[in-house]
């Protein structure tokens, strides 16, 4: 110890002359990244509840906020919004980081004085707060910062060159690793469930894929959908359009995962897994007309309820549009057979090559308790433009059926397809394959009224058609078909400006100055289909009711105004397979209810 030790500490007195460092106003602003009070852009938020799932303190609950501008329960938006309880929150910001839409953020505000702790529960964005417009605060740190996979596991496909000339299925399906990786991306929000017409348990079967429990997966599938092999390939997957994972990255491949489950299980094991070895059969008899998805679905569920079902089909095999409309490179016939054979094995009778006319219908009415019609839309609609009555102007639906039936069809060197829907793409790509096999080169052009961005066909259909060599030139209205010496020369079109008028009614407007000519030897019309209800006699028709679009009106059990007559499928909803499956299932429940209440 020295004199220095006694004197040196007194240097601290130098601080007397310094400015104090304490803040005059302690209510300072938080740093730009500060994790302060929450903000939510309620119009971007879709109420998926992922924030609730990740919140470790259970501080977030999803509550309905109907009636607030920008929030509405609709397809892809649950109408729920997160309510945050600041009595539980720890401001870790994981809810912000995981938010599927990035609508949830935090402001840098950190002062909120209340006397009642209950006030600390609030719905950001709905309950207006002073910090709602603070720009600063915690946000998702970087575009490539994620808590779940953003990119789809790519699906093995045949290359365009390989698949271009054959009708072999070109989507290879997932391997186990790929399927589990893809299933891992699911956030289990359930936004997809209500959007799926059949309300399939999508998060549940994806979970089954993750856990590699295929049997459970199959049970989940069959609870709402008796055609999983088919749907797993050609469903219009409305679920993927609303998938919350797709908000930032690529939507989950829900359809391929469904196919993966069904592909894993051989048909022999279905009875055991689904517990349908012994099903009770009662005395009620139901006739179903048309072996399309709606009738198959209705017959499946009715069989499980113990009713005897007979399906009457005009053609030689079951499946309807799925077999005769969809080309086999998308949906191979053996997969259709797998699903249908299982339904048949439950005791459903199939009567093929039987055309039901008015007399037959009345006969069926007498011999059965209920008649269900699901004859779908199988009459092609014509554009009616000059020249469309030429013999080389075809309906896509007829051609597709003939291809399936193995009949020879005309395959000229130049083909024009009118239409922008999935059926138009199907015939385009089928013609591509036939041309390639016959000539080794492709000249198929598809045109549609709708411009590229609003084409009704699935996006991948358009992309794949182009990959295979077809030309897709949308946004043109057909004017006339030029015929010289009884032979088709091509199609005149002019630019389509808009399709609907201000009342959303179909009323296309054209720019007659902007013209084009597509050379063709053959024109295929694919602008939609109509139904054929010639089997309904005038007497019956007078007892039935129709809506302005000509569709039969039914109640929510899909029962027409004649109690014994139920209707389903594309005739009332859709058109697509999944709607048919869904309303077939609903009709089955309706029929069961009707039969039980009749007693």
């Amino acid at each position: 110890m020295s004199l220095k030790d006694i004197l040196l500490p007194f240097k601290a007195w130098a601080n007397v002359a310094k400015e104090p460092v304490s803040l005059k106003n302690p209510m300072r602003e938080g740093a730009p990244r500060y994790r302060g009070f929450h903000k939510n852009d309620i119009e971007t938020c879709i109420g998926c509840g992922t924030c609730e799932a990740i919140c470790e303190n259970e501080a977030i609950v999803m509550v309905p906020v109907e009636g607030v501008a920008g929030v509405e329960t609709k397809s892809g938006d649950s109408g729920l919004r997160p309510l945050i309880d600041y009595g539980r929150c720890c401001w870790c910001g994981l809810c912000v980081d995981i938010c599927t839409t990035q609508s949830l953020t935090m402001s840098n505000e950190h002062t909120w004085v209340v006397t009642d702790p209950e006030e600390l529960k609030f719905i950001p964005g709905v309950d207006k707060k002073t910090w709602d417009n603070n720009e600063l605060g915690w946000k998702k740190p970087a575009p490539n910062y994620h808590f779940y996979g953003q990119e789809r596991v790519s699906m093995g496909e045949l290359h365009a060159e390989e698949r271009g000339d054959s009708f072999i299925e070109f989507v290879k399906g997932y391997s186990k690793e790929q399927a589990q990786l893809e299933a891992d991306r699911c956030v289990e929000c359930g936004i997809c469930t209500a959007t799926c017409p059949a309300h399939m348990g999508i998060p549940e079967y994806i979970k089954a894929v993750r856990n590699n429990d295929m049997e459970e997966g199959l049970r989940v599938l069959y609870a709402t959908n008796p055609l999983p092999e088919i749907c797993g390939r050609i469903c219009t997957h409305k679920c993927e359009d609303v998938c919350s994972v797709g908000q930032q990255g690529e939507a989950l491949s829900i359809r391929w995962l469904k196919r993966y489950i069904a592909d894993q299980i051989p048909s022999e094991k279905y009875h055991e897994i689904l517990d349908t070895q012994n099903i009770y059969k009662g005395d009620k008899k139901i006739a179903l007309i048309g072996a399309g998805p709606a009738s198959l679905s209705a017959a499946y569920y009715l069989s499980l309820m113990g009713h005897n079902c007979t399906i009457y089909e005009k053609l030689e095999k079951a499946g309807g549009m799925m077999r005769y409309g969809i080309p086999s490179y998308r949906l191979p016939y053996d997969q259709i057979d797998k699903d249908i054979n299982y339904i048949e094995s439950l005791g459903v009778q199939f009567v093929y090559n039987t055309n039901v006319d008015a007399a037959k219908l009345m006969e069926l009415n007498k011999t059965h308790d209920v008649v269900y019609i699901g004859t779908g839309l199988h009459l092609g609609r014509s554009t009616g433009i000059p020249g469309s009555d030429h013999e080389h102007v075809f309906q896509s639906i007829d051609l597709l059926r003939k291809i399936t039936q193995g009949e020879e069809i005309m395959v000229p060197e130049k083909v024009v397809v009118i239409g922008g829907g999935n059926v138009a793409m199907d015939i385009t790509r089928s013609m591509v394959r036939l041309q390639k096999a016959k000539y080794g080169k492709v000249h198929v052009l598809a045109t549609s009224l709708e411009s590229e961005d609003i084409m009704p066909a699935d996006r991948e259909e358009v992309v794949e058609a182009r990959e295979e060599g077809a030309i897709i030139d949308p946004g043109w209205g057909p004017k006339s078909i030029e015929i010289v010496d009884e032979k088709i020369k091509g199609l005149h079109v002019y630019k389509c400006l808009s399709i609907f008028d201000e009342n959303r009614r179909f009323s296309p407007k054209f720019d007659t100055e902007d013209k084009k000519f597509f050379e063709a030897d053959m024109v295929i019309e694919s602008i939609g289909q109509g139904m054929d209800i010639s089997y309904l006699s005038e007497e019956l028709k007078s007892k039935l009711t129709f809506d302005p679009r000509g569709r039969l009106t039914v109640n929510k059990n899909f029962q027409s105004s004649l109690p014994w007559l139920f209707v389903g499928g594309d005739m009332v909803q859709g058109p697509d397979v999944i709607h048919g499956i869904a309303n077939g299932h609903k009709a089955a429940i309706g029929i069961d209810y009707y039969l039980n209440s009749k007693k």
Partner: protein
Amino acid sequence: MSLFHIESDRSKYPQPGDDGKLVVDLDSHKYVKLWQGPNHPGVTGNMAIELTLAGDEIVQAKTHVGYLHRGFEKLIERRLFLQGMQTSIRMCVAEPDTNEYVYCQCVEELSGIEIPEMAKWIRTLVLEMSRLQSFLRVVPGQGGTTGLGIGVQWGMYMRELILDRFEELTGGRIYHMYFTPGGVRGLLPQGFKKRMEENLKEIDDFIIRIDDLMYSNAVFKKRTVDVAVINPSWVDKYGIVGPVARSAGFNRDVRKDYPYLIYDQLDFEPKVMNHSDIYNRSRIRWYELQQSVDLIRQIMARMPENGDFKAPTPNVLHWEIPKGEAYVRAESSRGEYGLYMVTDGSTKPRRVNLRGPSYTQAVCLLEDMLVGANIADVHSIMVSLQTCPPEIER
């Protein structure tokens, strides 16, 4: 020793029994029982020492904890791997980043994730900042226990400066929640290094001032030199780690011995001393305070400007980690700080066990060290061991 030293009559004090420990007969009315804590300005956090005094000398001490127990280890067993981190940090209030690191590293080791280079640099920076802010509290805090309050105020201001930088970088002042399994949650903001350097300059100045104020202070020396000496043979016996072990002559530093993150690329040498009294234990922290400042400068000068800062992880909502166990340690300002995690293949950890330096140092070591000490030195001794009760009761 000094002129005024009077040899007291030891016959009235308790005598050692057969096992070498003092025999204290409480019914003899010769002793006073005194509780220091659970609320006491000399302790960080809440713990109590039950003291038995003969005069002003301690003849028996017992550590009592449990005032803070929130069962975090148990709570983490109910949380997803991502969520557990936000809970684990609360096991040490004063230096939460070490918790973040050991937790995330355990998860990464068990699931086989390699974090990006950039994340390693940022993590090291954050860990050193965290050590720095902890030293800024405990170095002058040692003076505070002897009544030298002015240093504490300086230190607190310096610490606030570092907390400002933490706020800017991580979005939080105390609980940063900035690491995440797979990396970190953001890059350095614009101008961060410049502002950090300004703060480090002020801390440089503080280091000199605190040297003059404390370590060249006759009173402070009188109170700390040769008080509560730790015998080197105790280090292994009691599981002593960190600055306390280094002051007793053991060159043990997790950053050097088991290099993690990018510590092997940094240039530093652990400071070792040979006589572990309160003065030297505090002094060694003062050296490490300088070392931390130096390391932060090194990291900021050498770290990459940009890059990926988070490795992809499986979907955190159902992230399952296969069965396994891992023990990960890091050097906190108090020494070896480890986390033992056991997984069972589910989405949640089976067991998480934290090993903090205070677990041994503030229970069995402190209880034995206090015997024979003067009552006025109790909190000096506690602070010199850098006691942190939350890591005892977790």
